[in-house]
């Protein structure tokens, strides 16, 4: 399978701090790669490095067949588009003018593509309004449009739905899916919005403290996600005491709800709780979410 991006043992140091620590990953052509990690895990550092903004301290990466040390890598970069953290826009220019600057940098003059891009991201009505007067969501949309200029084969999006309203999130999701399915664009998305990512990604990469924790396909994730029962009770203490006695695998969620994993004799559990005076107010069965899987991988001890 052709790889758009291969990262091997990539390390990036800022002084004595290691932002990336022998990190490796593979992004196959045609994939939507969901890049997941907590704040400060190293996601943006990796994206900056593969976009050529910074040099790695150690290790290598290969972008569409060219190693990062090869001067010919510029050929790969011309087939790439990216939006890193906040969109990079000229505040004094309008949306169309920003796109014109980008198109000229690419060596393109097609104004029809500009009109289509603005329509695609829902900004065709902005006229001569300066970007400095745009809302956060409008800037985000324009940032995506800039990343799409020149019809890239590989798109890197760092928090693309940040600041977007629900309608905007749906539109961006549909745009990403359309680009991937119709135009075979490979996409690397870094996002904290796990629900949104779960609707998009075909592969997930988890990062923590600059190291790869796991790389897993959507199919494998679905198989790995455990079934669980979600119980809401009056007073968690009795439930937790009972679950500890049973040796059950459980996780306490916000709002007093507890998720219990694996096979559990529910009838026996509920009777035991009733005997101890603990009332079960709600019970639901569902699959483990991406959020739960992520927390089980990365750990939520910082928020315990």
């Amino acid at each position, binding site marked *: 399978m052709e790889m758009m991006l291969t990262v091997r043992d990539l390390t990036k140091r800022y002084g004595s701090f290691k932002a990336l620590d022998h990190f490796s990953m593979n992004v196959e052509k045609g994939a939507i790669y969901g890049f997941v990690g907590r704040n400060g895990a190293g996601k943006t550092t990796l994206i900056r490095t593969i976009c050529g*903004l910074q040099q790695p301290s150690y290790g290598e990466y290969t972008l569409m067949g060219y190693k990062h040390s090869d001067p010919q890598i510029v050929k790969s970069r011309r087939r790439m588009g990216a939006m890193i953290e906040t969109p990079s826009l000229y505040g004094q220019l309008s949306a169309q003018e920003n796109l014109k600057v980008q198109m000229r940098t690419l060596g393109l003059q097609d104004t029809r593509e500009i009109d289509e891009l603005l329509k695609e991201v829902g900004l065709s009505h902005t006229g001569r309004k300066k970007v400095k007067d745009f809302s956060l969501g409008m800037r985000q949309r324009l940032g995506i449009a800039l990343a799409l200029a020149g019809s890239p084969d590989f798109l890197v999006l760092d928090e693309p739905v940040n600041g977007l309203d629900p309608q905007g999130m749906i539109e961006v999701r549909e745009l990403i899916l359309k680009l991937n399915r119709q135009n075979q664009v490979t996409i690397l998305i870094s996002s904290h919005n796990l629900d949104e990512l779960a609707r998009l990604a075909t592969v997930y990469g988890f990062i923590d403290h600059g190291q790869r924790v796991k790389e897993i396909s959507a199919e494998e994730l679905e198989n790995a996600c455990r079934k669980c029962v979600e119980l809401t009770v009056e007073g968690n203490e009795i439930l937790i005491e009972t679950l500890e006695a049973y040796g059950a695998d459980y996780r306490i969620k916000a709002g007093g709800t507890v998720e219990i994993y694996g096979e559990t004799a529910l009838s026996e559990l509920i009777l035991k709780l009733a005997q101890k005076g603990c009332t079960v107010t709600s019970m639901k069965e569902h699959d483990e979410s991406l959020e739960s899987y992520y927390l089980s991988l990365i750990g939520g001890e910082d928020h315990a």
Partner: protein
Amino acid sequence: MRRMIAAQSYRLIHEKGFWGGLAVTILYALAVLAFSAYAMINNGRSIALDQLYFYGYGLDSFIPVAGLVLAAVISFFVGTEYSSQTLRNALIIGRTRTEIYLSHYAVSLIVALIYQGVYALIVVLVGWPVFGGFHLSGALIGLGTLIGVLALAAYCALFNAVGLLSSSRTVSSIGCLCGVMLTMFLCFFLNTKLQEPEWIEALEMRDGSSQVYTLANPSYLNPSQRRFVQGVIDSLPSGQSLQLSGLNCGHWAVLPPISLIGIVLVQGIGLLLFQRKEIR
């Protein structure tokens, strides 16, 4: 690089700072003409068009007007790439750092040439009928123009380097403006030192009578000091601009090579540092 220059030129014409600098240049040209005409008519002063032409590089050997305007416009224009983080856009799609650096320099040079060209056009078109034509030969006017243009090119190299190496637009704007002003005062001070006479007169009172005698000026620079101080003035774009504007330089032929060496050095060092700069 052609693409980068095209993109940056497009941005330039939409930049308010560029048009502001052009307006200042036009106003300056008109002010120079107006005040000179007033001095000629009311005070009977004789004013040559040559002097007004070279005022485009500096005002009366004191204020490097062109340098100040370019410092403000170029440092702001280049520094915007950091404040808006748009430098990333070009790097991501494969433009090299050399292309980015040199294209910004090229556009800075275009700004300098436009401003200087507009100034010269206004002064010559309006000034010729009022003050008469040039008194200096065409060759000297040409050489002077070359010196002036290369001094502006040296300014552009410095401002471009500061703008692209400093991650803060505010710091680079203040740095460039302060740099021009500091070198302006330095050149003025050094020039004053060069103007010190070799001999001074002293008055001595003895036995009720006064006697005037000549003695060596302790502030007079010896030949090697004079060469050093002149060298410092010649090596600075502000120094060259001010000498040109005052038409008080006796060694014009030396100045263009000095500017060229300065430009190559600044470009080389600036480019080397920019290649290694981490962009956020």
